[in-house]
């Protein structure tokens, strides 16, 4: 305990107890997050089962190439994030800084692709309430119910939007870590800050892992769907 003087907040007995509690606290918050996303996932499931064909039709119109590339981008950011935790614990500040900046970079790359995708969705009249053509869906063969298609698209924007909000928070937390790393306060003994932000970042990644099949891969694709 004497070696950890100044490290342990006054109300904790020792550093082990403190670290344990910090990780547990973030895990509990993630349990809350599971249910935040879970509420939308449940709603989505209800309609996905009810209007299966229309949801599949709408899904096929989404840009599967950008969706897939963004999945890889996020997975890479998770890798650099966990390497940042490793670097902190191994006492390699330079490596830590590189990993944090890379994680932020991949996070921003994700937003870049997402912006392109949203713009293209708009071009293709896939934005209910703003730019949407019900007639186009009725004329397809087999015809799709334009109402149900809009329902699917509303979910698409709510789910990706909610995910994007979490990404922004995550990038904010990472920026805070960069600031702390610059000041040299992320020593091996204080690695929990990086670990806890990492837990959050990985969770956001996991959400996307499920958004990919739910939104982009609900129906059968053709090779011609692969375009920017």
């Amino acid at each position: 305990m004497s070696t950890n003087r100044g490290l342990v907040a006054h109300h904790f007995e020792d550093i082990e107890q403190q670290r344990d509690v910090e990780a547990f606290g973030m895990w509990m918050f993630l349990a809350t997050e599971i249910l935040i996303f879970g509420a939308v996932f449940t709603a989505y499931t209800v309609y996905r089962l009810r209007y299966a064909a229309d949801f599949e039709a709408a899904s096929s119109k989404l840009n599967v190439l950008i969706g897939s590339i963004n999945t890889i981008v996020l997975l890479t950011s998770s890798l650099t994030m966990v390497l940042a935790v490793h670097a902190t614990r191994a006492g390699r500040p330079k490596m830590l800084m590189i990993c944090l900046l890379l994680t932020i970079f991949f996070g921003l790359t994700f937003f870049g692709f997402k912006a392109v995708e949203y713009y293209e969705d708009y071009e293709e009249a896939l934005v209910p309430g703003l730019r949407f053509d019900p007639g186009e869906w009725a004329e397809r063969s087999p015809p799709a119910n334009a109402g149900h298609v809009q329902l699917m698209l509303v979910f698409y924007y709510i789910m990706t939007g909610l995910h994007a909000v979490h990404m922004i928070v995550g990038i904010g937390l990472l920026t805070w870590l960069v600031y702390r790393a610059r000041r040299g306060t992320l020593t091996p003994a204080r690695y929990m800050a990086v670990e806890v932000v990492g837990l959050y970042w990985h969770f956001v990644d996991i959400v996307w892992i499920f958004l990919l099949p739910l939104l982009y891969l609900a129906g059968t694709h053709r090779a011609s769907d692969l375009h920017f």
Partner: protein
Amino acid sequence: MSEQLTPTKTYYSVFAALVALTLLTVGVSFFELGNWHTTVGILIGVVKASLVALFFMHLLHSSKLSWLAALAGLFWLVILMGLTLSDYLTRQVLDF
């Protein structure tokens, strides 16, 4: 928390597996699977999510409390989905 450091090699292998599974799940969507696309996608997603949770989030070496929180979140999600669907999946069955 884990006291031993996980070797970085583990992280790279997990990352490789995650990328491979992503390619697999996207690849599968080009085959005619009828209604099964989402099911297959979710199953592969569960594998990927478990890899992230166990290795990147260090659940494998975490205290029981972290497991408790993670499993509680999932269990309650099952309650929410299960009981909500118990309504929607039986709307037609017993509609007098």
